[in-house]
C-alpha cells in the first residue's frame, strides 16, 4: 500500500554546472538513491547532494527550463 503508507515527494538538486536535477522519493536521500539506478557515477558526482528544494508536482512545469 505504498502511496498510502510511504508517500513520495519531488526534489530539485543543484548541479555543479548551474542546472538542476529532478529527483523523487520518500526523502532527499531516497531520491538520490533512486537517481543512482539510472545515472552513472560521473553523472551522480555532478549533483550537489546537500543543496536541494522540495517541490510540488503541481509546480513541475515551472522548473522545466532549469533541468540539466
Amino acid at each position: 500500500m505504498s502511496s498510502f503508507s510511504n508517500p513520495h515527494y519531488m526534489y530539485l538538486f543543484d548541479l555543479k554546472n548551474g542546472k538542476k536535477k529532478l529527483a523523487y522519493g520518500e526523502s532527499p536521500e531516497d531520491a538520490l538513491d533512486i537517481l543512482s539506478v539510472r545515472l552513472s557515477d560521473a553523472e551522480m558526482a555532478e549533483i550537489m547532494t546537500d543543496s536541494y528544494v522540495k517541490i510540488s508536482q503541481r509546480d513541475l512545469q515551472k522548473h522545466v527550463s532549469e533541468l540539466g
Partner: protein
Amino acid sequence: MGITWPWAAKRTSDILWLDLGDLGDLINPDGPHEQWQDHGLGLLRTILHQNGIQTDILSTRAVTSWDQLAKQLPGYKMMLMNVRSYTYPSAYKAAQIFKEINPDGIILTGGMHATVALDEMQAVPEFDKICQGPGEKVIVDLVRNPDDFPRVIQGVGASSMAEWPMIDRTLWPKPASRRVRRKFNWPLEPECGWGPGPVVTILTSRVCPWQCVFCNENSYIPNMGRRPVDAVIDELNYLDDKHGVGSIVIHDSMFFQNPRWLREWIEKYPRRANKVWPYWAAARSDTVRQWPDLFEALIRETNWKTISIGFESGSDRILRLLNKECTEEDNNFTIDLLNKIADEYEAQGKEPPKFWANIMLGIPGETPEDAFKTMRMLKRMKWVFPSISYYAPYPGSALGFQLIAEGKSLMSKDNYHRFPDDEKVRGVDYQFYRELLAGKYDDIINQGLDAVRHGSDLYQGALVKA
C-alpha cells in the same frame, strides 16, 4: 468555393475542425484503438454547436494522403485542432497545407501538447492561436473573436465535469470506408476485444492524482470534480435507447479512486442502468490493496470485466525509478485477488474478469533481471491481455523532461509517433528487449514460477504504442 473532395460531407460552415491521427486510420486501421474518438473534440464541438457556431469536421484519419486532405480545404476561414504530442507532426503538416491553400485563414490550436510543449507549438508560425490548458470556457469567445486574444491563451476549464454538456457523438468523424463502416457502430465505437459492440467510451473523472514520472498529468491538468454517477448512467441509458449499447470503456486515467463515488456507482449502476453492461476501467495495485472489498464488489456487482492495471514493472527497483508508489507486493496482491475471483467465476461457468496489464520495458536503468521479473509477474496472471510498451520520454512528465534535458531522449518533434518498435531512449539495449519478447529468455523467466500457465506467445506481438 473551391473544389470539394468527392467523398466529403456537404459543407455547412467556413469553420473547420480537423480531427488528427494517422492517415487512413478510419479507412484501413491497424487495430481497434486507432478508431477511438477524441473526447476533447467531441466536447468542444458540442459546446460550439450549442452556442450557435456550426463547424465542419474533417479527419486526417479519413484520408490516405495529404493531397486528399488538401482537396477538401479550400475556402475555409478557420481551422481548429486538438494537438497531442503524438499528433503534433500531423497538426504541423496539416497547418502548412491549410495556410498554402487559405493564406488568410486562421488556425486555432489547443490540446495537451500546447500545455506541455509550448515552445514547439510557438515555433510553428502557422499556429495563429495556441490555447494552453482546458478550453471549454473560452472556445466560444475565441472562435467568435480570435483577434481579441493574444497568440498564447490560458484556457479556462469547468470546475466540475457536472458542468460539461453531454457530448453530441454525431459530431465525431465518421468511418471512411465501407469495411470499417460495417463494424464501427458510429456514432458509438467499434468492439475491441474487451466486450461486445457497440462500445461507448465515456469519462467519469479527470486527472490521476498520483505522481508516476512517465505521466504526471496532475502537473498540467487542473483538478476537476468527478461527473455525478446519475449523469453517467443517464448518458449510458440515452445512448442505449438511441443506438443500443454492447459494452463500455470508462476512459478515466484512474477510475478506481474516490471510494465514496465508487460506492454510489455500486449502488446505482446495477439498479438504474438499462443493463449492467460489462466495462473496462483502470486501477492501481496499491489502491486495490487499500480497498480490496470495494474492488471485489465492483467486479461482482457492476460487471467490471476488464481491469486495467498499470503494473509497469515486476521489480521494486524499477517501480521506485518510475515513482509508481506501488511495490512488487502490491502487484502480487492484486494478481492473487483477481486470480481467485476468476477461479470462482470459472467454477460457476461464468466468463472470468481479466486484467488489461500495462507493462513498460526499456526503462533507463532497467537490468535484464528486472525485465525477467516483469515477465514472470505477467505470467502469474491467469486471465490477461498484456499491453506492453517501450518507455517513452514524453514532455510533460518528470522523467521525460529530465531525460530530454540530459540529451538522452531519441524522440523528436518530428517523431513523436508511438510506433511500438521505435527506440526511444539513448543507451537502452533494445535488441535485448526484442529477443525477450520473442521468447529467447523464457527458460530463465519460467524458472521463477510455481506453475507455467503461459508460453512466450503471451507477449509475442503484445508490444503496443507507448
